[in-house]
């Protein structure tokens, strides 16, 4: 006969159960790092949490047939950072380029372009959706961001955001739900060739469920953090420091 579970024992299991239910249901998944004031902030939270509830199955963004690819893919905004370090890497065809992965990972390290290319690759034909209104379809090839983080031993339990910064002096934070998505990749290929400089060589981020401005080009480093407070104005990214939405699913 099994012993009846004592009340104390049963109560002790509640936090554990709560922990299981709340896994992946963190505040960061539904609310921007810093909520703006007033109605605009309320709308930001509504938009992000509605999106994240609808996307709780981590559905893939639409992938299109080859016939819809834009080739050459349009270039927009920065196409060649003046940064001295960038120009040196570009002149060496990025042979000496290293992507540092630091912060809240088990084994901080640097990855060369070849090492990133040796990770399991993913190719996806998806639409780049610019917040300005234009959209174009490209075939992106790259390493999933979560595989890149796993190459550094994976994130520690305290990790909340992945911060990416670029040679043209942009930074953006991404919550772990976005990072875990299979289509979130560091792309080194476009339309079957190497990623052209005008589209962000050597690496550009693809976050297919958010607008173009979250798809950073010319990646310089990856840092895993527990808070966005120490970066820029603390809103979570360059675009939101300028007053755009941090969560760019619309």
């Amino acid at each position, binding site marked *: 006969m099994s012993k009846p579970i004592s009340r104390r024992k049963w109560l002790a299991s509640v936090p554990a159960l709560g922990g299981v239910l709340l896994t992946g249901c963190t505040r960061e998944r539904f609310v921007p790092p810093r909520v703006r004031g007033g*109605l*605009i902030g*309320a*709308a930001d939270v*509504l*938009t992000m949490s509605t*999106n994240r509830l*609808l*996307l709780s199955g981590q*559905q*893939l*963004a*639409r992938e*299109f047939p080859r016939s*819809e690819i*834009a080739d050459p893919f*349009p270039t*927009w905004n920065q196409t060649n950072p003046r940064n001295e370090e960038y120009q040196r890497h570009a002149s060496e065809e990025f042979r000496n380029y290293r992507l540092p992965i630091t912060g809240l990972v088990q084994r901080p390290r640097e990855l060369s372009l070849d090492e990133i290319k040796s990770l399991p690759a993913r190719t996806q034909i998806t*639409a780049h*959706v610019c*917040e*300005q*209104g*234009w*959209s*174009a*379809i490209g075939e992106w090839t790259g390493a999933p961001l979560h595989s890149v983080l796993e190459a550094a031993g994976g994130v520690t339990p305290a990790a909340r955001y992945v911060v990416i910064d670029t040679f043209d002096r942009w930074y953006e934070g991404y919550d772990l739900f976005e990072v875990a998505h299979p289509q979130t990749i560091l792309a080194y290929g476009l339309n079957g060739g190497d990623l052209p400089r005008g589209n962000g060589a050597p690496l550009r981020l693809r976050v*297919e*469920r*958010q*607008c173009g401005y979250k798809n950073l080009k010319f990646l310089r480093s990856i840092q895993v953090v527990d808070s966005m407070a120490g970066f820029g104005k603390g809103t979570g990214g360059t675009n939101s420091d*300028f*007053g*755009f*939405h941090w969560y*760019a*699913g*619309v």
Partner: protein
Amino acid sequence: MDSAAISELPPPAATTKSTAHPYSVRICHWINVVACAYLLVSGVHILLDFPELYWGNTGYRGYPAVFRLADWGLSWDAAGALGDRRWGRNYHFTFAWVFLINGLVYVGWNLYSRHFRDQMLPARNELTVARIGTELRDHFRWAARKHSSSGSYGTLQKTSYLILIFVFVPLMTLTGIAQSPGFTAAMPWLLDLFGGRQSARTLHTIGTVLLVLFVIVHVLEVVAAGFLIKVRSMITGK
């Protein structure tokens, strides 16, 4: 000639009567006015910052466009200087939520209070060709007050409100979110429904023009029926 048809209608009011609008209509109406004003102005700002429209999934500067503001005398740079899309996007998405929540409250409240059934669903005898023909003719003669000044809605008025609320507004909402990479990842059928993200953007813009025309006609009708009395009744309910 068809005096028989006219005699079926209530006699023309000598003076316009006010309409006893319930709270559910008055509160939602004025919230809606504010939300739509913000949506329109912010939407124009967003469009001015990329003043071309396309069809399908693809559209960028240099790609064949179905509409270019430059063809109508406003160059890309001049349009961009007029539009502020950061302001536009912040307020467009904020008031889209105000509009949507207000609309859901309005529909829920008026289904519950039976306002739709009692006041807005045209009765069978209102849906005859003769009746609608007479109303149409009177509208073009600037005599609509025969039909709507009596305190209840005319048939054309009821029909156009119902189409607006249950067909047009849902289509505007869906063409709006069909442009969003987040919502379309969750609901990719939106892209198929409208023929692509750029098609949705084009349809959303055409819908805006139609909505502005609706508001112009709506306000003209209010003027024709007696502006001050009608506006007062939409505020006080008396």
